[in-house]
């Protein structure tokens, strides 16, 4: 078990990320929720802002839970990409607190913006000063609050900072429309030294209109 005085990165609450995501989705749009769980967010998007929603899940029990809400969901492992989802079939693709857990985050981000015009992601910021201090002082890898796993069993495969994330966006031709650092359970529009102080960040992304859409088939396989 992780020792108690080790720094644990706080995860933004479901409530907060749901609110953040809902705020950036236009009423009545078509939304695909990647890793939709039991369809909680889908239900809100559908009921509160009249969205046409679809869920993607790997767990069958979750798909049944979504069907029980009267909403649609399809089985798909995000590690395999979104091969069944046609180009441009959604207005928004949502991925909350999962990007660091997929095998190829770059590929999935490109896939999200192949199937949707805009993507919303919430990712942990491993550039937080406490993480840095932990590494520097104790030489220990960071862990997160809701996922207090040791390095050998953590589902978090990738440790990225906000700066790393921006670099990747530049590199693959995705535009950051909005970046909201999340600090101590609140999202803020501006934060001085965000890469040091934010524990997570919310991003609204879109395709660089000057670049061509990448087909699923063109993407490197696992």
């Amino acid at each position, binding site marked *: 078990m992780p020792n108690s005085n080790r720094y644990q990165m706080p995860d933004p609450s479901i409530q907060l990320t749901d609110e953040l995501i809902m705020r950036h989705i236009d009423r009545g749009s*078509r939304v695909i929720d990647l890793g939709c769980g039991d369809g909680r967010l889908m239900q809100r998007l559908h009921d509160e802002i009249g969205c*046409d929603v*679809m869920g993607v899940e790997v767990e*069958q029990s979750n*798909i*049944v839970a*979504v*069907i*029980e*809400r*009267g909403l*649609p*969901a*399809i*089985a798909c492992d995000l590690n395999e990409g979104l*091969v*069944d*989802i*046609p180009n441009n*079939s959604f207005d928004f693709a949502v991925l909350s607190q999962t990007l660091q857990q997929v095998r190829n985050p770059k590929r999935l981000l490109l896939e999200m913006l192949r199937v949707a015009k805009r993507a919303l992601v919430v990712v942990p910021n491993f550039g937080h000063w406490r993480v840095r201090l932990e590494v520097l002082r104790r030489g220990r890898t960071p862990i997160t609050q809701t996922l207090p796993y040791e390095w050998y069993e953590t589902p978090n495969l990738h440790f990225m900072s906000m700066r790393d994330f921006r670099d990747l966006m530049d590199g693959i031709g995705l535009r950051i429309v909005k970046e909201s650092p999340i600090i101590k359970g609140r999202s803020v529009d501006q934060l001085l030294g965000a890469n040091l102080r934010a524990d997570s960040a919310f991003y609204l992304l879109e395709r660089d209109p000057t670049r061509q859409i990448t087909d699923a088939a063109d993407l490197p396989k696992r």
Partner: protein
Amino acid sequence: MSAPLQEEPISDTRSAEIVQTQFVDLFQSPNVLKFANGETLSPVRVAYETYGTLNSDASNAIFICHALTGDAHAAGIHSTTDRKPGWWDNFIGPGKGIDTSKYFVICANVLGGCQGTTGPGCVNPETGKRFCLTFPFLTIRDVVTVHSELVRHLGIRQLLAVVGGSLGGMQVLEWAILFPDQLKAAVVLASAPNLSAQGIAFNAVGRRAIYADPGFANGDYYDSEGPRYGLALARMVAHITYLSEDSIELKFGRRLQDSDQFAFSMQKETEFQIESYLHYQGKRFVQRFDANSYLYLTRMMDYFDLAEGFASLEAALAQTKARFLVASYDTDWLFPTSQSRELVSALLHVRRHVSFVELRCPFGHDSFLIDIDPLAALVSPFLDRAFDAASV
């Protein structure tokens, strides 16, 4: 489709409801049935069963499409002495996956079949002789046209759902594009928008076995034994495609039938348990199925292509108005998951409400008839929500 593996426990018939197959003559002159190829038929006798009660506004009806060799007897028993209930009795009944205490369920034998609905073994009223191979060439469209007419005859304007596995799933798909206003929901299990080349290959072997049997007599065999060896062989081959490597291994392995030593004799035809099982399946099939129907229905299955007559599969599915539930099985190599995914992808392309799951089950293509609990967990809420949505 086939019966579950031989040793599979037969579901308890004690609680099963007693049902009767009913018959109706549809397409009476002048409203003759026009086949897709232009030929006509009148009248068409349809064998069907119903379970549960139709509600006052006829909004709770579900139609079950059976697979290749199924029949109208989907649930319940015909008499208290019946050893076996209907072929999907584990799925259809009070409190079951398709709950007949809530829904009114209809199942009919397909056109061209041999279990009560007009088919090649029936007498052609125009000639007074059996149709044999003069029966009109059949497509899934024709089968669905007859089902659809039956639903109208029963006074149902719109079905809550059409449900089917395998060839039954193909009928569901055809129905959804041919009569889109007649169904609210479509459940497509272990099926595909067309039969794979591998599936056609196995059907071809089955038909060849029938044709090559001297008893076939060009389809005019009803006064004799008929092509019983050919038909049994066709069934043996087909039956293998309904199983999986795992299920055969699990159930039979390399075990011998009645000895623990090889007989080293060419006279002994059934040395291994799997051999004996296939022989048994073949023999039993001949007792209940007509070779001409088998020829017509397998050919119909080969020809089926949902996209035919449209620019693409997407364009075909753009005709649909129903919400969809699609499920495949991981060990099904006759209707592999990739074909269900292709269907789902095309449905998403035309922005339909679609849910999809690949179920894990070792029983291959036959899983949809055997492993009912996970299927019920999926289908039951799907139907309930479709019903809620319909009654708003």
